[in-house]
C-alpha cells in the first residue's frame, strides 16, 4: 500500500472487528440485526435496533437477484426497489444514521463489480459503513475484492458454510475481516422452527481455526435459538425475523424484537 487509505487516515480501519473483539472479550455474546435498506421505515428500524442493544448493524442494499435470500428478505428487497431504492440512495440514507455502533453492508457482488471494487469500497466508507458482505462472492473468487477492500480500508467479511472443506476453512477465516460469517445451515435466509445441528458444527469448526469473532447467521428465528447457537458461537446475525417484524409491525417493533434477543443472550 503506497499511501494511507481514507479509512486509515480516519483511524477507522478495522473498526468493526475491534469493536466486536472488545465486546466478546468482555464476555458479551454479539448480536447483529439485518435490516433491508430502502424499505419504508428502515432508518428508524436501525436506530431502534441499536438502541435495543445491537452490537453492529447489517444494512442490506437491495439487488434484483438476491440468490441467498429466502421469501421474507426477497419481499423487502423487491418493495424497496419498487420504491426507487438504489445503492446510492441507501448509502445516502445510511450516512444520516447515528447509532453509535459499526455498520456493515450486505449486498450482491454484481453491484460491486459494476461500480468497480475501489469505488464501491470508497462509497461505503463515505457513508460511514466499515464492512461489506457479498454472499455470492465465495472465497475462491474473492481475491481481487479482498485486496481492493483492504487497500481502500473496508473490512471484507467472508462466509463459511457447512460444506466448506477443511482444507479451505483456515485460509477463509484468515482472509475474512470484521468477523467470520458462519452460515448456519444448508439453505437461504429465513427463520426455521428449530436450530439446525449444522449451525453449531460450523461455528465450532471456524472457532478451531481462527481467533476472529465468529457469528452464526441464516436460520435463526427466535431468542432461544440464538442462545443455543451462542453456546458455541461468539454471536448471531438475525435477518428475516427482523425484516418480517419491520414489514408487519413497523420500525418500533424491531426495537422490541432486538431487545428480546439482547435479554436472552445476556441472561440466557
Amino acid at each position, binding site marked *: 500500500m503506497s499511501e494511507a487509505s481514507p479509512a486509515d487516515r480516519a483511524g477507522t480501519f478495522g473498526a468493526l472487528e475491534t469493536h466486536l473483539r472488545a465486546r466478546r472479550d468482555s464476555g458479551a455474546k454479539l448480536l447483529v440485526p439485518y435490516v433491508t435498506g430502502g424499505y419504508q421505515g428502515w432508518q428508524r428500524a436501525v436506530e431502534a435496533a441499536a438502541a435495543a442493544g445491537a452490537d453492529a448493524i447489517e444494512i442490506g442494499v437491495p*439487488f*434484483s*437477484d*438476491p*440468490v*441467498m435470500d*429466502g421469501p421474507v428478505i*426477497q419481499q423487502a428487497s*423487491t418493495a424497496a*426497489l419498487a420504491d426507487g431504492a*438504489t*445503492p*446510492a440512495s441507501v448509502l445516502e440514507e445510511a450516512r444520516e444514521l447515528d447509532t453509535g455502533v459499526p455498520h456493515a453492508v450486505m449486498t450482491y*457482488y*454484481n*453491484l460491486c*463489480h*459494476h*461500480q468497480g471494487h475501489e469505488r464501491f469500497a470508497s462509497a461505503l466508507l463515505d457513508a460511514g459503513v466499515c464492512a461489506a458482505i457479498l*454472499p*455470492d*462472492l*465465495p*472465497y*475462491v*473468487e474473492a481475491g481481487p475484492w479482498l485486496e481492493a477492500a483492504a487497500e481502500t480500508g473496508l473490512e471484507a467479511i*467472508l*462466509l*463459511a*458454510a*457447512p*460444506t*466448506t*472443506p477443511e482444507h479451505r476453512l483456515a485460509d*477463509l477465516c484468515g482472509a475474512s475481516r470484521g468477523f467470520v460469517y458462519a*452460515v448456519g*445451515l*444448508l*439453505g*437461504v435466509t429465513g427463520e426455521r422452527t428449530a436450530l439446525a445441528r449444522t449451525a453449531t458444527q460450523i461455528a465450532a469448526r471456524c472457532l478451531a481455526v481462527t481467533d476472529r469473532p465468529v457469528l452464526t447467521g441464516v436460520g435463526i428465528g427466535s431468542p432461544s435459538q440464538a442462545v443455543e447457537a451462542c453456546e458455541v458461537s461468539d454471536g448471531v446475525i438475525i435477518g428475516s425475523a427482523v425484516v418480517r417484524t419491520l414489514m408487519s409491525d413497523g420500525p418500533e417493533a424491531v426495537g422490541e424484537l432486538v431487545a428480546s434477543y439482547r435479554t436472552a443472550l445476556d441472561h440466557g
Partner: protein
Amino acid sequence: MAAATDGPTPCHRSVMGEPTTDGRFGEFGGRFVPETLVAACEELEAAFREAWADPAFVAEFETMLRDYGGRPSPLTECRNLSSQLGVRLLVKREDLNHTGSHKINNVIGQALLAQRMGKTRLVAETGAGQHGVATATAAALLGMECKVYMGAVDVDRQALNVFRMRLLGSEVESVQSGSRTLKDAVNEALRDWVATVENTHYCLGSVMGPHPYPWMVRTFHHILGDEAAAQCKDLTGGDPDMVVACVGGGSNAAGIFSGFADGDARLVGVEPAGGAAVGRGVPGVVHGMTSYLMQDEVGQVMEAESISAGLDYPGVGPEHAYLAAIGRAEYPSVTDDEVVEAFTLMSRAEGIIPALECAHALAWIVRAAPEIQGQTVLMNLSGRGDKDVDQMMDVLGMHGLSE
C-alpha cells in the same frame, strides 16, 4: 458419426477447448456462487472429468442418445427456402429428437452423471419448458425425483409444456419473484440447490452458470456439432460458409459451433433484440458466472423481453462472451416481428414448424440473405414449434397474419 467412432475429444479443440482450472474462457466464466455451493461445483467437476474419461460412461451416454433420444438427427436441405433466399440452406434437425429439441443431449448426460454421483433428485430451471420437459423425461426414465422451476409468465405462455412435465411425474413450481421469467427460475433453482445439495443435482439447461456447467453442457452437446460437421461434409464436401444458431444461454449454438470452431466457417449466434446480452456488451456477474449481462446503470439485472420464452434471458454463457470478445463469432439480434415472419415462412415453405427460439436464426438469415447470396448456410433447428402454436394463434391474429 465422428463422435460415435472416435469417442469424445473435448480437449483437442483449440478455440472451444477446456476452460482454465478456475473455469475461465478468457476473462469470462468462474464460480460466483454462495460458499455453500462451491464444494458441490468442485465435486461435480471432478465427477464429470472422471466419467467423461470412462469409455463405459461415454458409451452409455451415446447409446441412450441413439436408442432413446433418436440420434443422429438428420440434416435437411431446405430446397424451397434456398431458392427463395438465394442461399443453400441446410438445417440440423434437433426438432426431431425425443422431447422435441436439442436439450435432451445435455439432460441425458447430466442425469446419468447425477446417478453415478449417487444423487436421487434433480432440480432444473426452464424457460420455454423444453429443458424442463427433457429433465422430467430423464427423471422418469431413470427413476429420479424431479422439480422444475418456471417463471409464472412462462407457465402461462407455455401451458402445454407445464402439463407435459406434470404428466411425466415432475413437480413444477411457478416462480413469482422478480420478472417471473427464466432468470428468476434460475435463482429459485439455485436456492433449492443451496438447501438440498446433499442429495440433489442441479440439472442446468444451458452453457451458463458456475464452472463446470458451461464447459460440461457444451461437451454434452458436442455430439450435435460433430454430427453436423460430418453430414455437411457428406453432402457438400466440406464445411458450410456459415453456421447460424439462436442464443439464449447458448447451448444449441455452442453445440453446433463446436463442430466448426477450428475451421473457417463464419459463426453467427442470433440473440433476441430484447435480450441482447452480447450485443450490449456490458460484463456482469450473476448466476455463478462473469459474462455479458443486461443491467441498468447501477448494476441491477434487467428483465429481458422476447416473444420466445427460451431466449428471454438477460445473460449469456461465458464462452459466447469469449468467442465474441476474440472475434471468432458474431452476435447480431433480431426483432420479435422478424421472428414471427420467419416462423410462418418456414412453416409454409418447408412444412416445418420451428420453435420460436430457432426462428430467430432463420430471421437473421432472411435479413442477411442479400449479402450472402450463393453461400452455404447451416442453421441449427434447435426445436420444434408445437409448444408455441397456442401462443402464436394469438400473436398471428394480432399481426393480422392468420387467414
